[in-house]
């Protein structure tokens, strides 16, 4: 019995050591990252390529959620939750609902690809944006958050409610104004 156990132990430990030596932990971590990134990018690609505009909108949601999972995976859990709530929850539903309400007879071809000129224009704009973002990402000096900041919520809350309290409140007022504006637009100035 003990011989069998020690055989199992040596097999398992040997296998594990070999896996670690071959860089399995890094490989698995990179694999998960690229799988999530792949979900985000491929569904974003699907948004452009789908013929049915409802499918495009749903794939856009999948892309949002993929990005949210990336945030969670990179330990930005607050950002991830915000991404889920705001984009995956609110924005996605707004888009999908708006599209479904303007329903056409022939939904299958509701997302037509435009002429070559339009496509070229879109490619230039998208390429320029990608270039800018890539440059920004490569040039910005990323650094690890100091441990003194605490977890992502505490650090963020401290900054937002002390140092940056003015921009925070301005943003809140801006949202309030937008909300009142939307209500007036929907109900008419007299009724609201």
């Amino acid at each position, binding site marked *: 019995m003990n011989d069998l*156990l020690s055989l*199992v*132990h040596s097999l*398992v*430990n040997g296998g*594990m050591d070999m896996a670690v030596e071959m860089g399995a932990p890094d490989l698995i971590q990179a694999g998960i990252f690229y799988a999530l990134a792949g979900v985000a990018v491929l569904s974003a690609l699907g948004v452009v390529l789908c013929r*049915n505009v*409802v*499918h495009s909108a*749903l794939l856009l*949601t999948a892309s949002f*959620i993929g990005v949210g999972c990336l945030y969670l995976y990179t330990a930005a*859990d*607050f950002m*991830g*939750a*915000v991404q*889920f*709530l705001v984009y*995956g*929850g*609110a924005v*996605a*539903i707004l888009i*999908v*609902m708006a599209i*479904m309400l303007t329903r056409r007879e022939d*939904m299958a071809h509701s997302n037509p690809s435009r002429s070559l000129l339009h496509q070229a224009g879109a490619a230039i704009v998208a390429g320029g944006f990608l270039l800018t973002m890539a440059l920004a990402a490569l040039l910005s000096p990323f650094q690890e958050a100091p441990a003194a900041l605490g*977890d*992502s*919520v505490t650090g963020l809350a401290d900054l937002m409610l002390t140092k940056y309290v003015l921009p925070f409140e301005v943003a809140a007022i801006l949202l309030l104004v937008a909300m009142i504006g939307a209500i007036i637009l929907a109900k008419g100035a007299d009724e609201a």
Partner: protein
Amino acid sequence: MNAMLENGIVVTVAGVLREYLMLLFGNQFLTDLIMKFIGLGALIGVILTAAIVFTYAERKVCALIQVRLGPNRVGGRFGLLQPFADMLKLMSKEDIIPAGCDRVVWALSPMLLFVPSALAYAFFPFDKGAVFADVNVGIFLLIAISSQAVLPFLMGGYASNSKYAMIGGMRTVAQMLSYEAPMVFSLLGIVMLTGSLKMSDIVAVQADNVWFVLLQPVAFVIFVITATAETNRTPFDLVEGESEIVAGAFSEYSGMRWALFFLAEYANLLAVSILTTTFFLGGWSGPVLPGVVWFGLKAVFMVFVFMWLRWTFPRTRIDQMLSLSWKVLLPLALVNVMCTGIGIYIYRLL
């Protein structure tokens, strides 16, 4: 025995299991990995068991309130095998795919609906130290994940190519979005009292002091009402109001696909009961009995309360329901947050 009372049954059992696995494999990482999977399996087990038990319990509670007997033929006097008969019936049913539906979206909808319901269980503190994922943004992430349940409903409603399903989907969106706002604000008072978004901290604070239902009675009532609406149960079951729109977003589903909607519904029912327990009724804390038993008792009691509500109240109208949310519950929740803030300030001054 002492260790058991100190750490709670679940953690002790997990510890024993871990020791055996360690003895068997002799590798820390592999043991941890297997323990994670065992945890996952246990969570799925809880959800599936709940779905089976609740289909039976719902009928018996309904019968109790309507002074009937309920199921009493299949499996003895108490109809104990009724859920299994239901399951066999559902599995043997024909899978009807409506003409002109959006196939892929239609098939994905019931599966996707189950995902956020099941994911939420990862954050529940079943016992002291028995949380699958005790993240520091616990409540917030939980709300964010459960808000993803809206879109699958809309997908099902749209893809069925049916008027009733479409109306049901639209109603779901209106209802879930408008009840999410007061729900979140009612929980804010608890977060302010605890000073943490972590689920385990919320229970720990209640275990050391008093249950939050005593400190936040208004929030408790708001939470129970909004939770009823979020799970689409009477008096807020407009989403699937049989007399108006057949079965709402899942009118066109049959057999196992329909069963998936049902599974998600009962997973949500248990989820909101567990949430009420965790936020307001002190979670696993309680005298004499082990934590997980207290937790189970409180959760089952809340399930009973939700069933009681369902079979007692008639269905509201959609405009009544929406104005209740925006004009009564939301202002009330905001006032509650303000009062909590003032209360905490005064308490600190004393």
